[in-house]
């Protein structure tokens, strides 16, 4: 039995003919690019321990086979990693060529000390930049986050973390409560959902010093002021808007959250939410994967995702981000740049998104309908990420002493959960940190 040429086949063949030139051009460009240029070199990569680094290390062979470059990669827990690379950079002889950097913590420190090389110069060199790299694919916010105030781009964006609202669908449905769209709605419904006798709480969130500032900033971003610094880079964490955000933080954690929340970091929050004991949890996007893990979570399949509710004056979600940098002292910048192109390439970024390891800095993964439809995460999750990207704004000030800032303001916020006056605590903390910031800014 033979089959003639159908209209469908003819249309497909015509489409293929039309599409052929660009495909061939791309293939030629791809084949012309010399991925083996630095074959035989070995580079050291220092990463923060997280699911994204695990993905890179698991797929490292792919890069090694493609380029012939050997990679020695390490993953170190976040806080220890920050100390390690800072100390190694300060020593003048870092042991690594490529380093993963938390931009919300170390961006200004790294930029001021010029520890990492300017990526733009490498990117401009067509002989070492793959035509597939497609820099325009990176989100504008992520690129801006990776760019220093003097225009240098010393990291390539990797991951953009947005604060989103996780909610327990079952608990909300039981009381016929709609997903909150404003902070006021969030508080009112959280209060209705709180039943201490059943050990069910309307909300759970970070109360521990330092860790809590990123939650507080989610509320501050909803005010007219939005940021911790004014246009002259002066600290304004004791303004009326800052105090309003503090009051909201206080009442949400004091009235609607589990006892002991003042000592909760993300892991305690995650445990509480996973066990179905809290209705709302505002935190980073990376927690979707453990929450949907049926072997560990009691709320798997019952988790809803929404953007952070609107504030009284603005609607933003806190954004944090990471990037990859190349050590200025590295003697293998070419090989390191190849690694960066691969690590932040479209394939790895798509892996981040579909595995729930985090929201990629590139935009193309969000447009990959096929991959998204096959993901174990709901459409609601991806829509929330896309919507969050549109309203995102840095959740922490870009200053060098950011950890000290988080500790000082964070301790004040923790005290408010215990009942302390928000205005007094924030004024005292601001007064304590202001000279530190001023000294740091003078040195800049």
């Amino acid at each position, binding site marked *: 039995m033979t089959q003639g040429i159908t209209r469908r086949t003819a249309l497909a063949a015509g489409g293929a003919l039309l599409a052929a030139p660009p495909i061939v051009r791309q293939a030629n460009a791809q084949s012309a690019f010399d991925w083996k240029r630095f074959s035989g070199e070995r580079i050291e990569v220092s990463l923060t321990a997280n699911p994204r680094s695990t993905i890179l290390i698991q797929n490292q062979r792919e890069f090694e086979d493609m380029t012939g470059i050997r990679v020695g990669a390490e993953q170190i827990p976040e*806080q220890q990693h920050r*100390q390690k690379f*800072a*100390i190694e*950079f*300060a020593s003048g002889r870092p042991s690594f060529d490529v380093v993963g950097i938390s931009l919300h913590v170390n961006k200004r*420190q790294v930029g*001021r*000390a010029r*520890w990492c090389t300017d990526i733009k110069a490498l990117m401009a060199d067509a002989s070492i930049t793959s035509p597939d790299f497609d820099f325009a694919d990176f989100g504008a916010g992520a690129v801006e986050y990776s760019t220093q105030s003097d225009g240098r781009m010393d990291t390539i964006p990797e991951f953009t973390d947005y604060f989103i609202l996780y909610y327990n669908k079952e608990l909300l449905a039981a009381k016929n409560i709609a997903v909150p769209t404003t902070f006021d709605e969030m508080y009112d419904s959280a209060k209705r959902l709180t039943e201490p006798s059943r*050990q069910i709480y309307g909300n759970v969130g970070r*109360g*521990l*010093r*330092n860790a809590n500032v990123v939650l507080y900033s989610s509320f501050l971003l909803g005010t007219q002021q939005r940021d911790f610094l004014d246009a002259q880079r002066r600290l304004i964490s004791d303004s009326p808007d800052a105090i309003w955000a503090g009051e909201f933080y206080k009442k949400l954690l004091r009235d609607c959250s*589990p*006892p*002991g*929340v*003042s*000592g*909760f*970091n993300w892991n*305690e929050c995650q*445990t*509480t939410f996973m*066990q179905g*004991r809290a209705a709302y949890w505002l935190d980073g996007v990376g927690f979707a994967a453990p929450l949907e893990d049926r072997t560990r979570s009691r709320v798997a399949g019952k988790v809803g995702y929404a953007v952070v509710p609107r504030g009284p004056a603005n609607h933003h979600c806190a954004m944090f981000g990471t990037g990859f940098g190349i050590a200025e002292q590295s003697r293998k910048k070419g090989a390191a740049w190849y690694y960066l192109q691969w690590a932040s390439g479209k394939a790895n970024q798509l892996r981040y998104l579909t595995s729930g390891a985090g929201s990629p800095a590139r935009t193309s993964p969000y447009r990959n309908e096929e991959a998204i439809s096959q993901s174990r995460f709901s459409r609601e999750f991806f829509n929330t990420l896309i919507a969050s990207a549109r309203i995102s704004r840095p959740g922490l000030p870009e200053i060098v*002493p950011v*950890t*000290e800032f988080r*500790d000082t303001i964070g*301790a004040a916020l*923790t*005290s408010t*959960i*215990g009942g302390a006056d928000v205005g007094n605590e924030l004024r005292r903390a601001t007064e304590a940190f202001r000279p530190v910031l001023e000294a740091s800014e003078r*040195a800049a």
Partner: protein
Amino acid sequence: MDGAASLAGTAATTTRRRRRNYSRRYWWFVVPCGVVVLATIIFPWVFTLYMSAHDFKLGGGREYVGFANYLKLVEDERFLLSILRTLYFTALSVVLPMVLGLLAALAFHRKFPLRGLARTIFILPMMATPVAVALVWTMMFHPQLGVLNWLLQQVGLPPSLWVYAPETVIPTLVMIEVWHWTPLVMLILLGGLASLPIDPYEAAKIDGATAFQAFWHITLPLLAPFLVVALIIRTIDALKAFDTIYVITQGGPGTASETINIFLYLQAFAYYNLGYASAVVVVFFSIIILLAMVLLWTRARVRA
């Protein structure tokens, strides 16, 4: 006679010269040790003193500030409170294991069936890795999901917030110290009890002394040198406690469990204020020296 004296004098001179020569040669054997001490103890100390007199920041410059870091410490409420918390934590972490360790040693000194097994079980906590222990305790302390509150509820007691409330965080951390280190005190005192002579007890028994009188007037004084050793070890251990506190609370809630070690760690490795952190080290070292002198003085008095 003169000749003999002269010969003797010459021999003495030669011996002295030889001794002197030997001692000169011996100095070379001390050099490796001296270099190690210089590199690992003397130099770090001198450099710490140097840094404490500078505004020394990682990734930034250094500027001579004299005693400014020390003066800042005197005015730093957070630092002063960290000293008080350290003393509070140390006092509880020394006294409780000492008392409980003594009671345990007295109990395990007596003969009873399966005594060896019971002793082994008792000293098990001491063998656990502090960080692993801290992680397990953290899970057990969870106010809603931890096993400790579940146990309290089983016996009709109200739940506690453990390390999640400023009021209870230090007593809870002390509880872990007690669980972890009481066996060490018990072992030291058990060794002491085993070495005590029997005669004084027989004499006391003949004189009609009660068990408590025998303990108070014989056991305790004879055990005093061992108690002082245990006291010194426990005090040093409690003063330098860091890993458990850092893993469980990171100094929180707020700054409620921020001891000097945590404060120092944050200044040096989170804020990168190396000059200021060096000043903290110098002050902390002075406090430890002071405490050590008090303990050594106590030990000397006990021996006397």
